[in-house]
């Protein structure tokens, strides 16, 4: 089933290791970082909006 004979072969990628892992590495990095950034932005936005709403309700009281 598995095409590779050894783990070293898999890493070496028939001499294309740098290109293959350079592609997959950046891809994985982007797909890991993007959701983190989006989640952080959401948390920051929620916190800011909550502060604004509290400030508004105080000023109208």
């Amino acid at each position, binding site marked *: 089933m*598995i095409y590779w004979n050894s783990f070293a072969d898999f890493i070496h*990628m028939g001499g294309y290791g740098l290109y293959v892992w350079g*592609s997959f590495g950046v*891809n994985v990095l982007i797909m890991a970082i993007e959701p983190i950034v989006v989640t952080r932005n*959401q948390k920051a936005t929620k916190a800011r909006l909550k502060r604004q*709403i509290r400030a508004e309700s105080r000023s109208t009281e």
Partner: protein
Amino acid sequence: MTDRFNLYKYAAPATFYPLAGKLIPWFAAASVIFGLAGLYLGMLVAPTDFQQGEGYRIIFIHVPASWMSMFIYLVMAFWAAIGLAFNTRLSGMMAQALAPTGALMAFLSLWTGALWGKPMWGAWWVWDARLTSELILLFLYIGYMALTAAIDDPRRADKAGGLLLLVGVVNVPIIYFSVKWWNTLHQGSTVNLTKSSMATTMLYGMLLMALCFWMYSIAVAFMRVRTIMLERERHTDWVKAELEGDAR
């Protein structure tokens, strides 16, 4: 009370916000499952390519990223058209939520293409019709984001951005057909509905990766659209209730 399915109801941010929140974990899980299955087939099971050696394995992410970069743009242009025609609130938010992910997909397409091109063609970059039109797509995404960010009023930003999206949509068929219309260095399409020039494991691996990218894009776009909804609808009662219900 009628229980009829109403599209307008789901197009309202107040109902779409919780719906998207419920769907995100499912899309994220689907993305991980498709990704693992695709990587297993593509990286571990699929045989080598007789012409390109193991370097061909880059296409398992290059092709899905390229497809998504074009598809996301088409979806954004669709929302832009809806927004300009019917003045719906959701459409502009959807387009804005998709743009960064689309830009990242275009970047990934170019990045993985460069890393494939260096060993195969001997050059990171050539001014070939396919590559150049994909680069223009990246610039369109960046231009859209810069334009909408520069206009304070979100409704006006949506209109201006939407216009840019609709003008730029002409670039997508140019990318897609460039390998047919011009004599490009970039190879023609590998996957075809009628016949495919790939081994079955390679084809399935690539299709699974495409599904992974698709589910990922939906999950991230939904996450982003929820933030945009809170921001834009901050004066409405539903956002106030949503934020107060959020104990943390």
